[in-house]
């Protein structure tokens, strides 16, 4: 069983300062009807460079602050975040324009175990906006492709129109270095891919349980069925990582809002091994 005493990621960074550091929006990409990718540049000093799976607290002046995962690792202190408009602060963030200034603190939390996946087959499963925190993992894998065994990426979305990073998915698919599979809940005219839940695409994947590691991010129900499917096929629960979402306020293990049983999603997570969180995620109201 995994223990969180083991170093699994970069842990808490920049814990000292709770002051948001000003960053300017330098690029805005409308990914889908309700999802936007912002590239931010520090106005003067930036924050410590994040790693895949970490998040920052993004502050929209006058609206408030929310935790947002990094969706790409950029050079030169730039930050890339993909945000879904779910009202409130996220609505304000998604309405950002080039030149706007946002506050950033972080990065926070533990990232994906990319190093632990070296030498292994890797199954990446993303649902909806869950592809955003996993995108840097795919970038890392493609940058050092020979370091990994078979790599599969299964992406689920509500509809074709809500699939994130569509052009990039096509590019990855054409490179044939990653087995990219997409599946939507509801088909629309012209959609020639699969329809169903993500486990439908997992059925056809060849999986060698002993050498497989998995990274899963999406709605909690989806992560549960994916982890169940993988463990049913013999993949060790400790080899499956999920990104746990909780209401985060302070991001530095102070407020207790993000507590999942004995763990704090902001510092012990958001990426946690399945064997550690499986039983907790079935507890109602936890």
């Amino acid at each position, binding site marked *: 069983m995994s223990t969180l005493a083991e170093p699994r990621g970069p842990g808490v960074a920049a814990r000292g300062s709770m002051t948001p550091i000003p960053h300017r929006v330098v690029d805005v990409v409308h990914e889908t009807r309700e999802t936007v990718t912002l590239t931010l540049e520090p106005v003067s000093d930036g924050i410590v460079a994040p790693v895949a799976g970490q998040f920052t607290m993004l502050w929209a002046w006058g609206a408030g602050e929310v935790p947002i995962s990094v969706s790409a690792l950029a050079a030169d202190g730039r930050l890339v975040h993909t945000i879904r408009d779910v009202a409130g602060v996220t609505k304000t963030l998604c309405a950002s324009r080039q030149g706007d200034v946002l506050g950033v603190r972080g990065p926070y939390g533990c990232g994906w175990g990319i190093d632990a996946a070296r030498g292994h087959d890797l199954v990446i499963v993303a649902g909806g906006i869950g592809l955003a925190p996993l995108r840097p993992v795919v970038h890392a894998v493609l940058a050092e492709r020979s370091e990994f065994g078979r790599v599969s990426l299964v992406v689920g*979305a509500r509809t074709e129109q809500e699939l994130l990073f569509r052009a990039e998915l096509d590019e990855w698919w054409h490179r044939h270095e990653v087995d990219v599979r997409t599946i939507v809940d509801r088909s629309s005219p012209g959609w020639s891919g699969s329809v169903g839940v993500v486990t439908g695409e997992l059925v056809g994947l060849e999986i060698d349980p002993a050498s497989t590691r998995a990274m899963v991010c999406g709605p909690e129900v989806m992560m549960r069925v994916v982890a169940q499917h993988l463990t049913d096929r013999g993949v060790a629960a400790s080899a499956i990582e999920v990104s746990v979402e909780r209401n985060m306020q302070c991001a530095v293990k102070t407020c207790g809002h993000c507590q999942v049983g004995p763990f704090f999603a902001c510092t012990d997570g958001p990426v946690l091994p399945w064997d550690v969180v499986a039983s907790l995620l079935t507890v109602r109201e936890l």
Partner: protein
Amino acid sequence: MVVTTMAEELAAHRFFRTIPSDLRERLAGCARNVVFAPGERICVEGTHASGFFAIRTGRVNVGIYVPHQGLQVLETRHAGDVLGFSWLFPPYRWQIDAVAGERVRAIELHADCLLPYLEEHPAGGYLLVRMFAQEMEETIQSTRLRLLDVYGRDRVHAR
């Protein structure tokens, strides 16, 4: 060239992997290999359901034809899945339309051959019906999950 028997091909398919070899041999006698080109209709709603398919490779889009809108795809069946439950129950009529999403290789099993045998051999019949019941449960569960609209409800911030 390696020649495999139908029983071996069934044994290599996820659905039949765990059944006793004597039953598999019997099922093999009711089976044949079929290939569908992309876009080819595999079954048509309202017509006689003469058997079922064990998909070996490729994807099958399952749905219902809506006038002037074409096939409304409701789910995709993949390699390792079986396609078709209607052969088991009266009135033995397909309730769905299915079209090959890409080139599909499948094993077709014929009800005319299977049903009399299963009636006479209830142990094998019970086992097969249980296996189909499990497939149906998985299909229902997949439908439930989609009704839940998990992606639409995903009010996640930290992603």
